[in-house]
């Protein structure tokens, strides 16, 4: 890197960034690549805590030095075993510190890290390994290893499989499999023979080098690997620093899959700049307990998670004593009054503030502590639309929750509301240094250094994704107000043309439906049909609770969905939504999906969203029933 061209610098929360965002070279503390920043941080942070992870029920701390050493060993060992610059390494694991170690180690020696969801099947794994041409595969444990063993002969390009947990695998002897501790040993030995080798590799990294591959869920066709360069990520870090500020003293909780760009940014790359501490949740099932234990300062989650926390409180309150309920109601009222000002970043009148202060002391503070939100400075929601009522509820209990928008192709971050510039119902303004426009057909298009490099070995798809003048087609339809706030109305691809010739964006109706506590997700059907219908996935917990309160008998999930009272409940929810839409956009009929879907099912994405095409295929009989 040419040091003579360092642009003007500004310090934000103790880290130096370019004064003018969106300019080349994108520098964070004068580093232009992820590995360079990683090196800088590990050197300056040393023994301070980088990660925390629960081991046999106790939170243990791991320092930046551990981060550095393990990444170094992984990087050097992989290089020793045959990894060349530009080769891909796939990681198939739940979130854990080794995920970060591997990500950094791979990138430092010029490799490209590609995450695989633990919910993917063996055949999906085979596709991803072959498509990315992976040289190495890192698997978490025997369960994930078995996926590889099933497809062993379909992935001849793989040199080695590295296993993170040896439990149950002590007797494993397989020429292509090795345990992580043996990999560390190779790295250790290499480090002694070639000191400085790792640092030299890091210095070779260039901003335009591809740093990671993120496979996009691909609701249509096979998943495509989006290539993100060092510069893309640095641009995201730069934008994040201005929009999602973190302090050195912050605690975070990492629980969404790290294969997803959202958690990857927030839990691996942003902390490289922000120096905050990342706590890894034990498992997806224990998130709410871990949240309570960690009580993070910032927390980024998908709407489903925010919804769950809210439901918990709702259920708790229904079962509370009359006095408790009354107090909660009063406190919420006081909180809502203040929230109305806070949410718009207006000044709170003194009377309202005092009233809130009292109720906060009496009720809300305890509620936040119980939920693990007591230290929260900012909650973020992304990856799916969140209901405005839900946002307001969080502001009412004193948790500032803002919505943002991004996709893999924009390095995870495109627009963002902040605590100080917030319009509920929008996804905020474009992040600093990033341009955004609405095309003639309503599509949101972006331009800037966040824009990804293209799809891995798929020039055709890459070309389709960019306009002739170099703007990225997000595929989302939306509008822009005069202050630059963006509202999303739907997906371009999903536009339904009814038999009557009306164009309808189903996403708008679907997200309205999802705002109901009883509906977890919905798919609107109606392309080339006479009228619209919907397939509904109910929210198990809330609907079960409703059924019990209303004395609706049911045994399992299927019988719950079959109950007339539940159908009536959903019908009223749909009727309420129908009122907000024009006649042609109204849902005439619906069916409930009566199997409880899990992330392993093809119909769901890893973030638990329904995939239109799979749902239409798997539940075709339900659709035909309605027409």
């Amino acid at each position: 890197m040419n040091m003579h061209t360092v642009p003007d610098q500004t310090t934000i929360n103790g880290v130096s960034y370019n004064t003018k965002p969106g300019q080349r070279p994108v520098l964070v503390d004068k580093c232009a690549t992820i590995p360079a920043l990683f090196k800088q941080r590990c050197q300056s942070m040393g023994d301070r805590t980088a990660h925390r992870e629960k081991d046999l029920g106790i939170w243990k701390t791991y320092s930046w030095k551990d981060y550095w050493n393990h990444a170094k060993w992984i990087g050097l060992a992989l290089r020793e075993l045959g990894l060349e610059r530009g080769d891909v390494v796939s990681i198939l694991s739940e979130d854990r510190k080794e995920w970060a170690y591997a990500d950094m180690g791979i990138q430092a020696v010029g490799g490209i890290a590609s995450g695989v969801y633990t919910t993917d099947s063996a055949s999906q794994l085979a596709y991803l390994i072959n498509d990315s041409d992976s040289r190495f595969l890192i698997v978490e444990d025997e369960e994930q290893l078995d996926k590889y063993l099933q497809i062993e002969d379909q992935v001849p390009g793989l040199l080695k499989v590295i296993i993170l947990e040896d439990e149950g695998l002590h007797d494993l002897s397989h020429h292509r499999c090795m345990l992580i501790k043996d990999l560390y040993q190779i790295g250790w030995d290499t480090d002694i023979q070639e000191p400085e080798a790792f640092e030299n590799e890091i210095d070779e990294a260039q901003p335009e080098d591809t740093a990671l591959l993120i496979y996009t869920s691909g609701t249509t066709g096979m998943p495509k690997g989006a290539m993100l360069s060092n510069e893309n990520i640095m641009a995201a870090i730069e934008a994040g620093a201005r929009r999602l500020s973190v302090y050195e003293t912050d605690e975070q909780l990492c629980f969404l899959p790290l294969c997803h760009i959202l958690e990857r940014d927030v839990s691996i790359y942003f902390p490289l700049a922000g120096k905050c501490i990342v706590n890894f949740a034990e498992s997806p099932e224990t998130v709410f307990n871990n949240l309570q234990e960690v009580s993070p300062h910032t927390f980024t989650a998908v709407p489903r998670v925010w919804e769950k926390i809210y439901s918990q409180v709702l259920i708790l309150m229904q079962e509370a004593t009359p006095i408790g309920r009354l107090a909660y109601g009063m406190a919420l009222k006081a909180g809502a009054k203040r929230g109305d000002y806070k949410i718009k970043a207006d000044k709170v009148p003194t009377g309202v503030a005092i009233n809130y202060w009292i109720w906060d002391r009496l009720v809300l503070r305890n509620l936040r502590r119980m939920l693990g939100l007591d230290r929260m400075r900012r909650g973020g929601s992304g990856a799916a639309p969140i209901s405005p009522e839900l946002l307001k509820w969080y502001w009412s209990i004193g948790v500032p929750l803002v919505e943002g928008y991004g996709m893999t192709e924009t390095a995870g971050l495109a627009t963002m509301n902040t605590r100080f510039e917030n319009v509920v119902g929008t996804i905020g303004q474009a992040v600093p240094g990033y341009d955004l426009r609405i095309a003639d057909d309503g599509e949101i298009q972006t331009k800037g250094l966040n824009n990804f490099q293209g799809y891995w070995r798929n020039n055709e798809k890459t070309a389709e994704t960019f306009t002739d003048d170099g703007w990225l087609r997000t595929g989302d339809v939306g509008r822009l107000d005069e202050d630059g706030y963006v509202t999303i109305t739907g997906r371009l691809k999903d536009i339904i043309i009814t038999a009557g010739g009306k164009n309808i964006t189903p996403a708008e109706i679907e997200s309205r439906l999802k705002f109901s506590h009883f509906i977890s997700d919905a798919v609107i059907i109606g392309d080339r049909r006479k009228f619209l219908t919907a397939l509904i996935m109910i929210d198990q917990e809330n609907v079960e609770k409703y059924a019990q309160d209303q004395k609706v008998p049911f045994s399992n999930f299927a019988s719950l969905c079959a109950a007339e009272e539940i159908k009536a409940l959903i019908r009223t929810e749909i009727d309420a939504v129908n009122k907000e839409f024009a006649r042609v956009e109204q849902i005439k009929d619906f069916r409930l999906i009566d199997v409880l879907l899990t992330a392993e099912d093809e119909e769901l994405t890893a973030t638990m969203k329904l995939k239109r095409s799979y749902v239409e295929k798997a539940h075709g009989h339900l659709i035909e029933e309605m027409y």
Partner: protein
Amino acid sequence: MSEPILKIRNIESFYGPIMAIRGVSLDVHEGRIVSILGANGAGKTTLMKTISGVMDPEKGQIIFDGREIQGQEPHRIVHSGIVHVPEGREVFPLLTVDDNLSLGAYTRNDTQGIEQDRELVFNYFPILKERRTQEAGTLSGGQQQMLAIGRGLMARPKIMLLDEPSLGLSPLLVQEIFEILRRLNKEQGMTMMLVEQNAAAALNLAHDGYVMEVGRIVMDGTAEALMKSEDIQNFYLGVQEEGAREERRWKRKKTWR
């Protein structure tokens, strides 16, 4: 099918603040054997106790023979025709076999009928006749279980709730007792609700089954259908899935489909 003889609707039962049954609904039809499967702590025994009135449900209804019986005193429930054969037998150890059986008929006063039923019990469990003067505490585990079932029969119930009749018995004895239960069902038309950990034996015997997990029913169906379910085979019947390696330890997630 006809109206179920026992209908349970959204029962919730608590141990102090702990919710042991979270809204359970199920049906038992006359003449059928219904088996409840589930791991430790799933709430199976609590469900039985709630039906027989030992525990009172916080919410929900238990409708037996067209009448709501939830929350009634246990003796009235026995009187209305439900008999609970408790887990771990719980015979009166210092009383003789005969006295134990007589106690089973405590709610009745038709001497002739009682004697007939005593003969019926001895017919099904001849060993009890041999030992009728012996103290119950000196019987073997299997014999005590037989006595407990026999004592239950003495109330001439319309339905028997059997809580883990196979507990602590040898496989051979389990077979024997289950065979007798099958005969009782067939020949006497005895309706039974059976809680079991021994899923294979229970599904073999039962007509219908429910699977409970942490206080909820997660799956139900005919015994045949349940036996075919992959989840049941994997988690209750011990069928090993074909794996990539022989010594596979992990199990896939349950889906209950």
